[in-house]
């Protein structure tokens, strides 16, 4: 499974390690839906830490789409809402 952290590149995570991620991902989505900026920051930081910890960096010249794309660590709630709500924001 390939996970991208925006601004940091992609990492490979073995399927067995995914369980922990799902829980954290759910917390994140709950915070976004509740508009809870603090909770969002905490959940995002925890999720990214976990991904960095269990993931292996993908070689730069490999071209594969990601199964998960995560916002960068300093992303605000508003930025993530924009990403989710309007795909016109993503250039290229």
């Amino acid at each position: 499974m390939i996970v991208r952290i925006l601004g940091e590149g992609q990492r490979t995570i073995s399927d067995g390690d995914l369980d922990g991620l799902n829980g954290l991902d759910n917390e994140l989505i709950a915070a976004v839906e509740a508009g809870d900026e603090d909770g969002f920051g905490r959940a995002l930081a925890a999720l990214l830490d976990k991904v960095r910890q269990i993931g292996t960096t993908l070689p730069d010249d490999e071209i594969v789409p990601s199964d998960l794309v995560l916002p960068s660590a300093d992303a605000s709630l508003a930025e993530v809402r924009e990403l989710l709500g309007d795909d016109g924001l993503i250039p290229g």
Partner: protein
Amino acid sequence: MGMGQRLALIFKSKANKLLDKHEDPRETLDYSYEKQLELLTKVRRGVADVATSRKRLELQMQQLQGSSDKLQAQAQQAVQAGRDDLAREALTRRAAVNQQIADLSTQHSQLQAEEEKLTNASQRLQAKVDSFRTRKETIKATYTAAEAQTKIGEAMSGISEEMGDVGLAMQRAEDKTQQMQARAGAVDELIASGALDDASAPLGGKDDIQRELDSLSAGSDVELELAKMKGELPAGKAPQAIGSADQQAVPGAQTQPEGEAQK
């Protein structure tokens, strides 16, 4: 569905839109490759822009540090002259300058982080663009339009996700740079207005504290000279000396202290 999956889908649908644009998917490869090269150029320019902003900040921080040092020296000079009011004024200004330096320093680290991220993104993109070119040629040489579809699909969503990511990184860096430039412009204006007492001001452009310190030391030089003159007059004769028979002693007493007062 989780956040990560939703975002991944958004990137994928972007790639699919691109694929639908061309009847022969192989044309999409060439089109995308052109876009990749364009993006690479833009990212490199972006890295250069961020670096320029960072250097401008560094220059301003140096200027402000010069001001701070100068104000510190002025405060010491004022204290020595017994002018606490002047010293207080100099220290107050120094505190304001130091606050500016601290703010700029925070912005500087943010900008440096953006620069590093963008440089890394540019390297990743470069590696992927090179790899894409090889893959594109292989696909075009090996497969018919119909067969190429799936092969192209993966390459396209992979590269377009990367391009999307780089595009976002660029946008962030641009926003940060613009904020920084507005900020740097404001600091330049402050320095120009004299409010921050620019240490790099040309000679003659002295600030009010320096003017007062200068007149203070000029004044004390005069007092010193006067005291010295009085001390060198023969005892008991001072008030009556002028115009009397002792006049010969006066020229020597007048010239000597001038040289000593400068020490």
